[in-house]
């Protein structure tokens, strides 16, 4: 969102110079402080070492993924200059690799088809619920909210198996069928619903922190003007929380894209995402490094693009409001 800039107030030249001088002094003291911090040489070296340790493994993966298979298996990637050689065969090879039902290229499309709805649906439902928790009064609101928060920490493992049988068999209580099974194995439906449900608690919690921080006067004023909750939500709350929604959406996207456990349980055969197929390749052909490195790089490519394109949003956006003491 664009920052609101104040209108330039007309001032005389002397005042302007004075103000400018003040600014300059402030700037100078900031640089002075920065200098003082940087004199600690040990800290600088330590941070350089950490940065190096955290980057080199990924860098090595990338270099390896574009080297011919024979070279990967006989020489280290750091000897690329002594043993030069580039190829994109690994990539075309890995896109065709897979199991009897699908290859990595199709799994890539599956990942997209799973991730987009599984990002959008929970975010919408959660923003509705977060508004309800933040700006509507009802009995037991606090307890209910804490209950939703606590669900966030229920291990997914607790829910997986019963949810799977719920999908396939429906729900029967005392011989009465409340709803029938979805009958939808082999489609994305199960994965969408599962990701939606598992994402909800955390997304509600994070979004609630933002929506509750909005000034109460704003909501009151709208209500006095005769706006209903639907309008307030749509016209005021939604636009104002867009930065937060964007940052949380990016995270939900990364979580769903990177998930393996839900995929293993709910996405069978033809609809499996890339993580599942990659895990299979790792298990079955653990020594085919040219496949593993290029496959891994394809799987991290989309998250990395999303990450580099949008990181300025979520670095500051994700936890604002949730860490208030």
């Amino acid at each position, binding site marked *: 969102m664009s920052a609101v800039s104040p209108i330039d107030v007309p001032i005389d030249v002397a005042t302007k110079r004075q103000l400018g001088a003040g600014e300059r002094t402030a700037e100078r003291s900031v640089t002075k402080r920065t200098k003082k911090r940087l004199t600690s040489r040990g800290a600088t070296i330590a941070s350089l070492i950490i940065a190096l340790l955290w980057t080199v493994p990924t860098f090595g993966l990338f270099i390896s993924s574009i080297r011919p298979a024979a070279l990967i298996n006989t020489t280290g990637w*750091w000897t690329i200059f002594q043993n030069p050689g580039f190829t994109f065969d690994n990539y075309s090879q890995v896109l065709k690799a897979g199991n009897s039902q699908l290859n990595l290229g199709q799994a890539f499309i599956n990942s997209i088809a799973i991730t987009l709805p599984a990002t959008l649906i929970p975010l919408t439902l959660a923003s509705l619920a977060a508004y309800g928790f933040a700006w509507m009064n009802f009995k037991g609101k606090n307890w209910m909210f804490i209950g939703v928060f606590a669900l966030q920490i229920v291990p997914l493992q607790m829910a997986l198996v019963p949810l799977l049988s719920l999908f396939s068999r429906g729900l029967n209580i005392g011989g009465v069928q409340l709803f029938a099974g979805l009958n939808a194995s082999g489609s994305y439906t199960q994965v969408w619903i599962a990701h939606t449900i598992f994402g909800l608690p955390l997304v509600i919690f994070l979004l609630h922190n933002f929506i509750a921080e909005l000034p109460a006067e704003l909501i009151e004023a709208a209500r006095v003007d005769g706006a209903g909750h639907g309008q307030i939500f749509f016209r005021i709350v939604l636009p104002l929380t867009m930065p937060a929604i964007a940052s949380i959406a990016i995270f939900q996207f990364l979580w769903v894209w990177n998930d393996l456990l839900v995929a293993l349980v709910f996405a069978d055969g033809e609809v499996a995402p890339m993580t599942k197929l990659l895990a299979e390749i790792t*298990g079955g052909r653990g020594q085919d490094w040219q496949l593993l490195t290029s496959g891994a790089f394809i799987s991290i490519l989309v998250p990395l693009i999303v990450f*580099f394109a949008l990181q300025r949003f979520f670095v500051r956006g994700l936890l604002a409001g949730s860490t208030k003491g």
Partner: protein
Amino acid sequence: MSDFFNWISTLPALAQIPLVVGAFVVVVAVILFFVEIAPRSGRRYTIIRLAVCVLAPLAIFVFLGSVAWAAAVAAVLGGVFFLLDYRSKQGAGYLFQLVGFLAPALILLLIGLVYPTILTAIAAFQNNRGNRFIGFENFVWIFTQPTGIRVVLNTIIWVLIVPAFSTAIGLAYAVFIDKSRGEKFFKILVFMPMAISFVGASIIWKFVYTARPAGQNQIGLLNQIVVLFGGQPTDFVANSPWNTLFLIVVLVWIQTGFAMVVLSAAIKGVPTEQLEAAELDGTNAWERFINVTVPGIRSSLIVVLTTISIASLKVFDIVRTMTAGANSTSVIANEMYTQWKGFENGRSAAFALVLFVLVLPIVVYNARQIQKQREIR
């Protein structure tokens, strides 16, 4: 609804996205429309409300393929609900709006998390076919088998080491690069692993750890370093007990960036005046850090430690892809999946319950924190 999903699953993958999203948007739009209509007075709107109270549950049950009289029950409930609403102190239609906003999420949570959790808790005390209660037998099995104990112990090792190291390294890094030149760039370098899937990260680190027999060229970076210093190449993920630590390194590598970003934002929120006042009192940098900065970022530290603790309790992907639990590296989440795949539902559920018990203290602590915050508001 079942038919809709069946139909949609016959389409090509990418065509399914707009259709599902479109259908979903329509549903939300309808909810918002009725929420907006709800508080309006007048006979017409009253009739609409009444109709929705009866028709909405009916529609839902019909779509879910249920018996008709279940829908009738829902209609009666709808009527009661309507009457209650009519007398509500908050104005007509308030309850109606409330349900519109909260029900979709809450119903999904009830179906998808609360109900399954209860079922799993019950299944933990049943035999593997789920038709007979066998008391604590499953738990006895876990805690009398050397492998079972090992699995629980490994999980505890994960949850002790990962949060401590990632938070410490993240905090140190955040402090070191604070206000330095190129801070943003340095942040991205360490934060990047957050974007990489656990499976991808596992492959990256498998490649770092991989070993070739002595005498050959090493292709794994770590073994190359070992050989460089005159050591023998070792297969890091194969040799117990240290292999668990080498797996833990991967999660630390992933989570440090998260800790660093959150703590860095918190450090910037510590008032400069306090730091300057401490400086005037003649304290050194370390004292200022312990006495001013750390108390200032306490709540962020708690959030970071909690989040990473939960992530490491539930760790699954890394163990699954790097060792599949072999060579005594298994953790609860992985063992639970393995047991389930082997049709040992009772044991699988028992593992899940053990995991839940381990997470419980963290839930209670954080719920209390939230309650305190909400009371302040």
